[in-house]
């Protein structure tokens, strides 16, 4: 077992720069609180972990299955309010409220399906955009239950120290992203979902003609997207200790889309890269003299990325450092002259 893992690492990871970078990145994340002093930066990366789950779940739902969901904050907000309400009225601990909050997110995803399965394209986007706003209106209207614009505050902390919270969020993020990545892997021998979601995005009628029950897979995509967005939302509520209306705001939905498009759409790792570059960058700008232009820079970055790097920064970098062997389709480092397996010329 250990030897197989070592062999995989020796021959499967080290020669491929993209995978090596990913491993280095995760090792860096795990030792990050040890090398950095001050809880401020650890805090930023805690939020980045949470948002990475959120962005990746949007990518799974909208990038892979092509159901352009513009109200992804619905699942985030439902889970965050769900776990907060459970604490407020029943006094349960985070260990119980977070899973139940995530299930509430899943339920919201499945309920969204009822109208969403009948629509596609711009109609679907506009419909999904409406749901979090409707819920927001209800939250403001029933102030005594939901706390109105102040939200529900005073939630219990996830753990007693900042770095413990960081490790909890990081672990949850790693596991969630791994599950989502495996679920959407189109080349997998064991799970067909990735391939089927690609097929639904490219041509739903053709996918149906080949005997795929597209309705079932779309519901699955909504449920899984809702589940992971829900996990992110419930964690977020317990880390900032408030479940507020900002978790349902239109900006929250669009932030997920911005991160994914920045990192690279239809690739779970793109979403993670997008969050871990853009979120700390924008947060760190708070400390610089140009902090009042912080929110101005975000849309400018989006516009520039869409115009000049439409496939996203992670995919752009991957194409620069990796090359596929034309004969055996194995990934090689871009600077190799010949393929590492079949020695076909790469030039």
């Amino acid at each position, binding site marked *: 077992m250990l030897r197989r893992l070592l062999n995989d690492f020796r021959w499967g990871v080290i020669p491929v720069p993209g995978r090596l970078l990913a491993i280095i990145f995760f090792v860096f994340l795990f030792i990050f609180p040890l090398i950095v002093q001050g809880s401020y930066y650890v805090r930023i990366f805690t939020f980045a972990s949470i948002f990475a789950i959120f962005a990746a779940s949007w990518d799974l739902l909208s990038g892979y299955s092509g159901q352009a969901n513009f109200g992804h904050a619905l699942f985030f907000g439902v889970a965050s309010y769900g776990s907060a309400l459970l604490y407020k009225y029943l006094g349960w601990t985070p260990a119980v409220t977070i899973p139940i909050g995530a299930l509430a997110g899943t339920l919201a995803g499945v309920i969204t399906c009822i109208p969403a*399965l009948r629509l596609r394209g711009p*109609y679907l986007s506009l419909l999904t955009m409406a749901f979090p706003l409707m819920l927001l209106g209800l939250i403001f209207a029933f102030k005594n239950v939901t706390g109105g614009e102040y939200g529900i505050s005073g939630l219990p902390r996830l753990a007693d120290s900042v770095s413990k919270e960081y490790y909890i969020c990081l672990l949850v993020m790693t596991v969630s992203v791994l599950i989502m990545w495996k679920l959407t892997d189109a080349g997998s021998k064991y799970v067909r979902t990735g391939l089927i979601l690609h097929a639904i995005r490219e041509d739903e009628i053709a996918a149906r003609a080949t005997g795929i029950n597209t309705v079932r897979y779309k519901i699955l995509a909504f449920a899984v997207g809702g589940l992971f967005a829900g996990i992110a939302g419930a964690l977020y509520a317990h880390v900032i200790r408030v479940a507020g209306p900002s978790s349902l705001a239109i900006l929250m939905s669009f932030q997920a889309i911005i991160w994914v498009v920045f990192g690279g759409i239809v690739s779970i790792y793109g979403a993670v890269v997008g969050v871990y570059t853009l979120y700390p960058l924008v947060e760190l700008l708070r400390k610089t003299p140009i902090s009042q232009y912080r929110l101005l820079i975000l849309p400018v970055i989006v516009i520039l990325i869409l115009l000049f790097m439409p496939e996203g920064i992670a995919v752009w970098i991957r194409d620069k450092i990796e090359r596929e062997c034309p004969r055996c389709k194995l990934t090689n480092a871009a600077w190799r002259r010949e393929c590492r397996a079949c020695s076909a010329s790469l030039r």
Partner: protein
Amino acid sequence: MIERIIIGTLVTGGVYALLASGFSLIFGMAHIINLAQTAFYMLAAYGMYLFTQQIGLGVIESIVITIVATTLLGILCYRLLINRIRQHLVAVLLITIALALLFEQLMLLFYGAHYLSTPYLIGGFTEILGVRVLNQHLLTLGIVAVVIIVVWLLLSKTKLGIAIRATAQDAEVANLMGISVPRTLLLTMGIATALAAVAGIAVAPLWTIYPYMWTSPLMMVMVIVILGGLGNIKGSFIGAFIIALVEVLVVSLLPSGSFLKMVFAMLVMVIVLVVRPGGLFGIVFEEERL
């Protein structure tokens, strides 16, 4: 009460009709969902504030300069940004929302998050059937009515209108008939932005001006165009007044109605989408539903 509801519906509906018809026009032409439509409306309202209050120009000059500047900005945004990626739905949605956020943040930088207002263009009130109506409301209604009629005539009688409708029906065949499709698209974008600018000017004296004023009308406009059928101008006009009536009724009759108006409008949209996905007057395209 009743007269306030009627006037409120007419004014709100007129403003929504201007915004929604521009939104619908550009969607019908090129399948561009322009989420920045109401951001141009916000910019025009700020333009009125800038020219009348800060620079101190006359009303007529301010209106002309605001409309021209907003339209040019819209055309510029279309030419430089939207046109290059208009094949990709998600990219267009993203770039237009990014533009809207950019404008919002710029206004926030220049003016801060204060509530501004311009004074009424004309004061006083007129008595109609024993009801006192502010002259400003009448002026706004007049502007809206004139603009709607002008757009109607433009689309149905002029050569440009025929070109726009032809391109909306089938861009390729329109191109074969000698219509320059890119130029028509550019002009349509200009008309849509000009409509938003007129709406912004019409509400500048009535409603408060603040950087986030574009979000709530944007949601309403989306509800309206779906209710009327995406890309259908007549549907947008009628949908605008229906939604305005719903909004005014909810706000004036229900407790905490200003929070619930969005819920009711969205409920209308969801019901329409589920029951009749093409909208009241829309044509259902086979490729757009399952």
